[in-house]
């Protein structure tokens, strides 16, 4: 048995559940320790020294004790509390969907520096501006980093470079008219998706809300849910239609 060990890392709080009288189990994604589940003692008391620091969405510096199943948060220091997200129902809903997606993808105790920095970047962007494409773009980036990068330039079945009219979740890519199955997709949505995944993300986020953005987001959601083999709860609980 190795003795418990103190460690430092940063993290974003993904979710919390109540534990006992006044504690919570906090799930965080960290760059150095992957997804971590830790007990925050007394955090529900109004005079807790943690205050709001361990609420979902919070970006924190942590000092933790490593435990066998659950770690223990001994100190938490705010890096960013994303107040503009918390005080806007739509942004908060979208942020929770980002957190849920990361929670599903991240593995416990596995390095996840890339996932962590993607999430921090997306939250910063959401805090600065409620870009209509942000959530969809994040889901696509997440899928891509999971190795599920969609085929967008050629038909996923026959390789034809033109007349791509459908998107198949199983094939993970666009299909030509002859091979089409799955869901129909417009050339505009495919073009926007190429920009999102091809290094034009910042510009793509400037895209105003509209049918093309909605199509890319819907396709992202379906693809991610297909990849995770489960539905994203946060998307279906609150009706966030604009």
């Amino acid at each position: 048995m190795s003795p418990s060990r103190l460690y430092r890392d940063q993290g974003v709080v993904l979710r919390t559940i109540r534990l006992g009288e006044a504690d919570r189990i906090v799930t965080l994604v960290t760059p150095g320790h992957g997804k971590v589940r830790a007990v925050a003692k007394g955090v529900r008391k109004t005079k807790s020294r943690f205050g709001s620091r361990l609420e979902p969405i919070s970006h924190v510096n942590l000092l933790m004790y490593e435990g066998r199943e659950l770690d223990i948060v001994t100190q938490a220091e705010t890096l960013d509390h994303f107040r503009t997200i918390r005080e806007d129902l739509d942004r908060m809903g979208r942020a929770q969907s980002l957190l849920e997606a990361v929670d599903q993808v991240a593995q416990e105790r596995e390095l996840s520096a890339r996932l962590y920095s993607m999430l921090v970047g997306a939250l910063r962007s959401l805090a600065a501006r409620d870009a209509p494409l942000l959530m969809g773009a994040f889901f696509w980036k997440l899928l891509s980093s999971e190795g599920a990068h969609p085929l967008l330039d050629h038909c996923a079945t026959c390789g034809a470079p033109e007349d791509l009219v459908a998107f198949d979740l199983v094939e993970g890519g666009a299909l030509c008219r002859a091979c089409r199955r799955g869901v129909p997709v417009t050339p505009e949505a495919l073009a926007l998706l190429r920009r999102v995944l091809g290094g034009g993300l910042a510009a793509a986020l400037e895209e105003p809300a509209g049918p093309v953005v909605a199509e890319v987001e819907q396709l992202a959601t379906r693809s991610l849910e297909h990849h995770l083999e489960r539905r994203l709860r946060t998307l279906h609980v609150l009706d966030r239609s604009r």
Partner: protein
Amino acid sequence: MYAGPVQGLIDELGRLPGVGPKSAQRIAFHLLKLSKEDAQRLSAAINEVKERVSFCRRCFNVAEVAAEGDGDALCELCGDARRDATVVCVVEEPRDIVAVEKTQEFSGRYHVLQGAINPIEGVGPDQLRVRELLSRIEGEGITEVILCTNPNIEGEATAMYLARLLSPLGVKTTRIASGLPVGGDLEYADELTLGRALSGRREVEG
């Protein structure tokens, strides 16, 4: 896994909030060690509460059932004619009413949502007493709604959701302030709480 009745007890206890499989096992073995009288007192208390207490038909606070089979009780607070019927304080759980009552700062009525919006756990407005709140606004001539849900992410989401729903109804909607706990030191306050305390500051009479 244990023999029939013991496992049955562990399973039932494990369904309680905040009780995991290990705690369920610990409580079950504690109950096994109780004297028969102690165990019967516990089960009688559970039975009595199920028979004599229900939820208030108006505000969903706990209410004592006066007569047998009277499922539509009014709670003590709703039955009190001295309370202001035009102001309603919306809380998540009946225990929050107890906390607000202790302040002696509020003399209106309450509405218990029986939970808070928690998208990640799949709890949405449909699982809460939201529709019932809306129908009370017009029916009871309510002019102010105080959103007194917990100052955590679920409570904030619930408050923002309700505020959006209530605004077209022309009812005054307020949210309890966030601030620093009295008796604490400023330097220990978290940034969000202190930030809100600053933006919610009020003028001091000189």
